[in-house]
């Protein structure tokens, strides 16, 4: 085979074919999806996240949470995602309209987080869990995110946002643990994770 230009044409056409099929076609087909109005509740879904939740999203991204947690629910009877109550329905493209980057994740070292805002809406649980996952979830192998918190001297009474620890986990007496802005916004992001709206394409 000595035909240089023909070779290059072959190289180009083969990769261009998959670009057209896996990138261009999807973009044409569902790259311009819009939010829809849910019949049952009258709400528009999905909504863009609040500013705080969006900031929290950046903390999620920066700390690589996606390497252990997925954000996609598979269909009923395919895997056990729905049986484990990780969602009432599977996730579809429309659920990710306002996400950049889309962090679907590829590993479930930890559970799926698509609907964690529904499964665990308690801020203090999330803060405790981030500070040291083994407080709320013994046996967990999730890394602790103590660097998202500050340890400071406690005053007469504890600060309103100081973490309340169960017995055995509290810091040395005279000290309290307070979440940084990063921890707070990250929790806001987690609380915003809900994908329950009954979309037409999931019925």
């Amino acid at each position, binding site marked *: 085979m000595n035909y240089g230009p023909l070779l290059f044409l072959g190289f180009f056409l083969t990769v261009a074919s998959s670009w057209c099929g896996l990138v261009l076609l999807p973009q044409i087909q*569902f790259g311009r999806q819009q939010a829809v109005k849910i019949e049952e509740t009258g709400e528009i879904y999905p909504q863009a996240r609040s500013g705080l939740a969006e900031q929290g999203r950046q903390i999620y991204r920066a700390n690589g949470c996606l390497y252990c947690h997925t954000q996609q629910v598979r269909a009923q009877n395919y895997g056990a995602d729905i049986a484990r109550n990780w969602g009432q329905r599977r996730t579809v493209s429309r659920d990710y309209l306002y996400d950049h980057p889309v962090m679907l994740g590829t590993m479930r070292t930890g559970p799926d987080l698509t609907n964690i805002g529904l499964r665990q809406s308690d801020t203090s649980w999330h803060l405790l869990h981030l500070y040291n996952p083994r407080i709320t979830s013994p046996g967990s192998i999730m890394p602790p995110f103590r660097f998202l918190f500050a340890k400071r001297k406690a005053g007469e009474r504890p600060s309103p946002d100081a973490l309340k620890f169960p017995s055995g986990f509290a810091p040395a007496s005279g000290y309290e643990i307070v979440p940084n802005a990063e921890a707070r916004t990250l929790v806001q992001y987690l609380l915003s994770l809900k994908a329950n709206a009954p979309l037409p394409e999931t019925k």
Partner: protein
Amino acid sequence: MNAPAPSILNALSPSDIEDVAERRAVLAEIDASCRNTLLLLFGASLTWLLLGTVFALIASWKMHAPEFLADISWLTFGRVRPFHLNAMVFGFSTQAGIGVTLWLMCRLCRTPLLYGWIVDLAGLFWNLGVAVGLVGILAGHSTGLEWLEIPPYATPLLFVSYALIGMWGILTFRFRRERHLYVSQWYLLASLFWFPGIYSAAQILLIMQPVRGTVQAAVNWWFAHNVLGLWFTPIGLASIYYFIPKVIGKPVYNYSLSVLGFWSLALFYNWNGMHHLVGGPMPAWLITVSIVASVMMTIPVVTVGLNHHLTMWGNFKKLKDSPVLRFMVFGGMSYTVTSLHGVLLALRSVSEVTHFTHSTIAHAHQGMYAFFTMVMFGAMYYIIPRLLKVEWPSAHVIRVHFWCAAIGIMFYLVPLTLGGVLQGLAMNNPDVPFLDPHKYSVVTMTLPYLRMRSYSGFLLAIGHTAFAINFIWILARWVKTLRLPQLATPAPSL
């Protein structure tokens, strides 16, 4: 009476031998012209290999000992893991791949390395870009896109570097002295062309002018899979196609199989990307198309596997004497096994179990390590002494490297693949709790396999250290030869 298999040497008449000295000089000239550039590239890639290995050990250890180095934000698992991936992919594998590509192209085009300074400059920019990008990842600036974590402020450096390499590639091809294109050259030219294409497309569509919603996932995995299929696989296969017949002194089994293998790979491999999203929020047709392409990959894999195996047929005893051949054959067999395993993993019924488990990680390492990295090791073991005209100081250390790498990766792959399957089965059984330290739960059952992976990592690290020792040692020896009187040394370098 059975005549021995035909060898080209037998077919030549004595008058051809006259040209031997001249041809010997050509190859010597080529090797010498590559020397400085390749030493830089291989040296840099080895440094990234060692750094990437350290971070691999850290990441692996953290998975079963989460308090390890836990209070340093730069070393949290979610940053260490992408550091490891990018250091290995862009720091080690890509640079080793480019070095081997250059040498193979020079040898097969029968031209010395022209405009070596272009590649030196490219190497500088590449290492700078990777270093800046990796530090950025540790600082928390990862893009959040798998295989594309390097922050946007570092990618222009990579772009400049690759533009230079692309330029070099075109020039060398244009000024080649050998008209016939050997099979390795198709793969190498293709990969040199494909990689910047997919990387630019990914940067534009995901970072500069991001597409919306799940189309991002489509672009992301189109890109990530093509890094494997259109960048590393061709370089690996090109190397095997060169080194196996080269070392054993026999021709490649079948030219037609080479053609079929190459074009079927070019056609099918790049459609595979969506098999990373089976069960995910993508329309059924998109997933189906990638599953089909994954199954069609059986064709190039079987074709290339047959070609390599039948070339080796009857020559397996040479494995005893040639470490390069050992690495190449290990790599080639791993390629076949990984790819066929990959075909299975793409099927929906299998993916239902293995998706999201440690099996996937094992599979990725089978391809990138057991195939690509082992092939690169073999290639470097062949090339470096020819650049320096000095023998490897210690065959024993090479043996240590090979066996640590081979056994290490088997101890990595087998437990993790098995553990991942069991993890998936547990995950798909809603009666198995996800986390319960007192019972059989999805999280706790993975721990022994994760520990096994860490231990295997130490074995791999020993192998890499052995390689580094030999590399520094041979460089030291080479420096000594420079001081010898000129007449005693072989052909002068350019």
